[in-house]
Each structure stands twice: as structure tokens, then as C-alpha cells.
């Protein structure tokens, strides 16, 4: 019975997804300085790779895929295989132990593609920069098209950054 009750409530009350934030101006400016749009279209498939994150970025990425923010309704979706991806979303300072896996994952993504560094660690290593075990950001390994800062970035910020990426690809 609770199942029917819940489904009925959701139908009557409407969906829970909130209006998405506008495209992030800083992100748009950063993308404008980089490579021109590759015409990936209005829907982007994302492959998320954790390269040494504390899992804070993963929590907020989960929230961004959840009903309140709902990445999917913007045309963004997280895919299980790099072979299905248009963009890699990389978190963490890139641990030395994940570097080979990151390179192999990147090689498996069809070209053209985009690389997003998500979170402060993915930018420059964050508070782990300089240890023997990290490379100090995704840019040390792959060319990065967009950095979404924050520790961790909020779902709103993630959405706004990814919208800028989609605008560029239109």
C-alpha cells in the first residue's frame, strides 16, 4: 500500500525537480578560451572517474543525478562505459595508483570528447598537492576543457558548469 500511496502523491503533487541554474559564466569564459565546440550535440554522456577523491565530490555528483537536480532532464546522463561517453568527469588529485587506469579510461572514450576536472583536488591537487602519492590535478595527465571548482562543488555549481559545456557543444 505505501507504494501506491507514494506514487499517487507524486502524481498529484507533481515532480520534485527544481528549475536548473543558468549556465555558469566563468565556465563559459574558460571554455571560450579553449578548443572550439566539437559538435557533440545537446545531449552529453558523462563517464565519471574517481582518481583519489575523498568521495565528497561523488556525494555531490550523486545529488546532482538525484530528483532534486536531475542531470538527465538537461540531457546529461552518467554512463557505465567510457566507450559510451562524450565527456570524462574526473575527480580527485589523481593518485599515482589511479594514473594508469585514468589513461586507459581516457583512451577508451571515442573522439572528439571533453574532459571536465571536478572539484578543487582535480584542479591542482587541493590539500593533497605535493605528496609522493598524487600527480597534482587532472591537467597533469590529460588536457582539461573545463574545471568546476569547489570542495566539493555543490550540485547547483556542477549543473551550471555542465550547462556551459553543453552550450559550447551546440
Amino acid at each position, binding site marked *: 500500500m*505505501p507504494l501506491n500511496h507514494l506514487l499517487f502523491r507524486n502524481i498529484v503533487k507533481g515532480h520534485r525537480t527544481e528549475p536548473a541554474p543558468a549556465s555558469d559564466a566563468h565556465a563559459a569564459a574558460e571554455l571560450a578560451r579553449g578548443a572550439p565546440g566539437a559538435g557533440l550535440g545537446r545531449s552529453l554522456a558523462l563517464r565519471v572517474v574517481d582518481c583519489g577523491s575523498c*568521495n565528497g565530490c*561523488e556525494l555531490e555528483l550523486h545529488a546532482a543525478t*538525484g530528483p532534486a537536480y536531475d542531470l538527465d532532464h538537461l540531457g546529461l546522463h552518467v554512463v557505465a562505459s567510457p566507450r559510451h561517453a562524450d565527456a570524462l568527469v574526473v575527480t580527485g588529485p589523481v593518485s599515482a595508483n589511479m594514473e594508469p587506469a585514468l589513461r586507459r579510461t581516457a583512451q577508451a572514450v571515442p573522439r572528439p570528447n571533453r574532459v571536465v576536472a571536478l572539484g578543487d583536488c582535480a584542479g591542482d591537487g587541493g590539500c593533497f598537492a605535493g605528496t609522493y*602519492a598524487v600527480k597534482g590535478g587532472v591537467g597533469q595527465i590529460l588536457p582539461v576543457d573545463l574545471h568546476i571548482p569547489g570542495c566539493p562543488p555543490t550540485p547547483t555549481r556542477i549543473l551550471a558548469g555542465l550547462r556551459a559545456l553543453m552550450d559550447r557543444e551546440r
Partner: protein
Amino acid sequence: MMMGRATLMEVLSLGRPVAGARPWPRVVLDDRAWRALVGHMAVADWVLLAEWGGPDEVHVALRDEETGEIAIATRASADRRFFALGPVRPGAIRLERAIRDLWGLAPEGLEDQRPWLDHGHWPVHHPLGAASPPQPARPYRFLAAEGEGLHQVPVGPVHAGIIEPGHFRFHVQGETVVRLEARLGYVHKGISAAMAGQTPAGAARVAGRVSGDSTVAYALAFAHAVEAASDCSPPPRAVWLRAVLAEIERIANHVFDIGAICNDAGFPLALSEASLLREMLLRANESLFGHRLAMDRVIPGGLACDIDEAGAALLAATLTRFGKRFQRLVALYRDTPSLLDRTIGAGVVAGALVYRFGAGGFVGRAASRGVDARKVPGYPPYDQLDFVIPVRAEGDVDARIEIRIAEIRISLDLLARLLAGLPSGPVAAAVPRAAGEGLGVVEGFRGKILVWVRLAEDGTVAQCHPHDPSWFQWPLLEAAIEGNILADFPLCNKSFNCSYSGVDL
């Protein structure tokens, strides 16, 4: 060698106590006394809390279950070796493999000679000990399983979905898992190295990022350790508000776990509901404390945030709404037979194994081991609050969900009392600059988190070691999945929800 019944402190009386170690003693043992300690551990009811290294010493934190005494024993190891605990406490095996990788101290008598955290990609060998040039990586030999029709399924380190990286090697016969072995260490980022030399405030930021989902609990354990080491008392208001943040974190993680477990059983509606419930708490955190996960709010000496009366009332109202909606999620779970069919009887952990490995948190409490650091050893303000520790005996996925449900209700009740009784006054005290050692023990949502810190004369962090409860839970996942079908692994794995970042360090 002294044998027969002896308490932990009696055995440690053979050693030399270290001055300035608080709140529990640390005792340095020579090789003979260390071996005697290990000999006693084989028969004594002493729980292994954590084991870690130093440049030329090995530390083990133990609790005597009969007397309740906690102590750290140290083996000064100038010869770069020590008698291993692994043979008498299997939970120590991976810890000792990590000690060998990081500090270059050899655990004598440890059968498993494979590296753990060192995958052969670091620019140095033994980075925290006597560092030497790197050695070429050798192929990792997974434990074998032999028999007709067996095949291997390698999974990871990059998984499908938004998950932390790790490698799982399955041996399966048809659908049935015969053996699982995990290989972790992929997110090792040198946390001890990142903390060394920092001020307590700087190192607290790193402590809050050992495992992001437990950021409050880690920052709290680190603060407890620094406050013990420097003899600093946080003001009462900070102590109570810290508990508010910690209980919100516990609920937010538990509720999302419940949804995610159901999702892995093919029931995404529960995950949607749970995500919205979690979001309520994160938004309250953001509006009241300035950060959705409350990162960097707990600092040594107290708190970096405060709330006014209106804020406390708003939070209380949010929690009441949360409680009502949470009831609907619980009813949804309990009244969906097709879902219960997947969770009941799946991924059973034997109570004997839980005790053998000293596993806590919902993994331990779902299999008869009723431990909670808020009660034992206990810390304020929980010593002033009456609450129960839920325990189940089944040890299956359903029991781990039910423990989480019970704990959310208890935490909601605790929060109501915490918010009603908030003491007034400041929320932070100055941390004196002084040398010392401290150990902090805090109950995170996964279980007992330990942080040990040694402060130098100038008050900076000389060494810090965080210990995640997942160290003693990951090996049990391997036991829980045995005999289940491979397709139930995500379900079982999520019901454990062990931290990768927390154990990879």
C-alpha cells in the same frame, strides 16, 4: 613469558610509559615484551582498535574488554622489523601490509607477503620510513580458488556509475561466488604526508577529507586528539553543537544508504525518496552552517560556526518534517515483499567473524556485536544523554538496513534533545601550542574512527594517523558474498558501504 590471565595494563607494565600521551597511556615495549603482548592477544579478550607505523616504530591501540582499559603499545623497531599481530588478529593483516609499504617495517610471521597500498607507481619506496628508490611493480597474485568449472571475473578499479575505485576479483561457479578478494589502495593520496608539518588548523582540513562522507566525524576525532595532546577543553556549546553536526551526518548517510541499497535491488523509487530526504538535511546544513556536508566546521578547540535561536528552531522543524517523511520510506521498504525477498537472507555475515575482526558500525551491530564509541569509551555530550544501541543477530542485508533505520530514529531523538538543551557561551577556545600526543575515538556513521596525533614543540603536527572503521569491514564483505550470486554483489556491497578513501589513506 608471563601467561595465564593478565589484564592489558598488567602486560604493558613490562614497558616504559611515554610522557605526554593523553587521554590513554602509550607504552614502549622491547621485542621481548611485544612478543609477550602478542602471545597474550591470542587468548585475551583485547580488541584491536588500530595499528600504524612511524619512522622506526609500530603502534597498536588495544582495548581490554574486561576492564575497559584502552592503551597504545609501541614496539621501538630500530632493526626495522616487528613481530606481527596478523596471525592472532586477522583484522591486522592488511594494516601490517600497509605498514610494510609505507614505513618499510617488516611484520615477522605474516604469511601474506604481497604489498597492499604500494602498487609500484610511487616515486619512492617506503615513502614514510627510510625512503629508497622505487622498485618495479610486480604482478599482483590474487588468492586462488581451484575446481572444475570455476572462472574469474575481474571488476574495477573503474566501476560503472559514480563509485570510488577498487578492484574486485571474483571466482565464480556459474552464478555463485566461490571467492571474492578485494584489492584496494587506488585512491592512496599520502594523507599522513599531507598532514605532517601543518598547524592543527591546516591538518584539520586534511582530516576532514580522509573520507568525505564522514567529514564531521573525522574532523571531530582529529579535534579530540589535538585537544587531548595540547590539554585544551572546547567550550560546552561547541561540544553540543558538534554532536548536532555529527548526528545530522549520521542520518544523511544512513538514509542515502537505505535508498541506494534498495536501488541495487532494482527499486529506484526508494533511492529517489531517500535522495530527497538527504537533500533536506544538506540544505539545512548549508543555510545554517555554511556548507552542505559541514566540512571544516569542526576545528581543534571548538567550532567554526554557531547558530542562533531562530536557526535552532528552524533545524528542529526541518528534522520533524524529515521524521514524518522518513516514516513513509520505512513503510515503503517494509511493505514491498519483492524488495524484502532480495534483502532478507542475502550477504550474511557470521557473528563469530564480526568479533574475530572487531568490526563495528552497522556491520557489527547487524551481527550481534553491540559496540558504539559514543557509549564505550564514550565522550561528551553523549555521557549526558540516554540512548540505546540497536543490535540485530541476522547479519544479512535486511539487518544492516534495519540497524540504519533504528539509528536514524535514535539520532533524530538525540538531535531534538541536543537542540533543546544547547548551552550558551562561546564556540571555540584557543589551542595552546605545546608538544604532546593524543588519541581521539569517535563513532562515525560507519563505526569507530580513531585519529592519533603527535604535536611538535611549536604545536605543529609531527605525525598523524587516521584509522577508518572500514579496515575491519572490507574483509567481512568477502566472507558475506561467498555462496551468493554474483548479481547480488552490488546489493551486498552497498549494504556494507565501506570507505575506499578512508582505508587507502
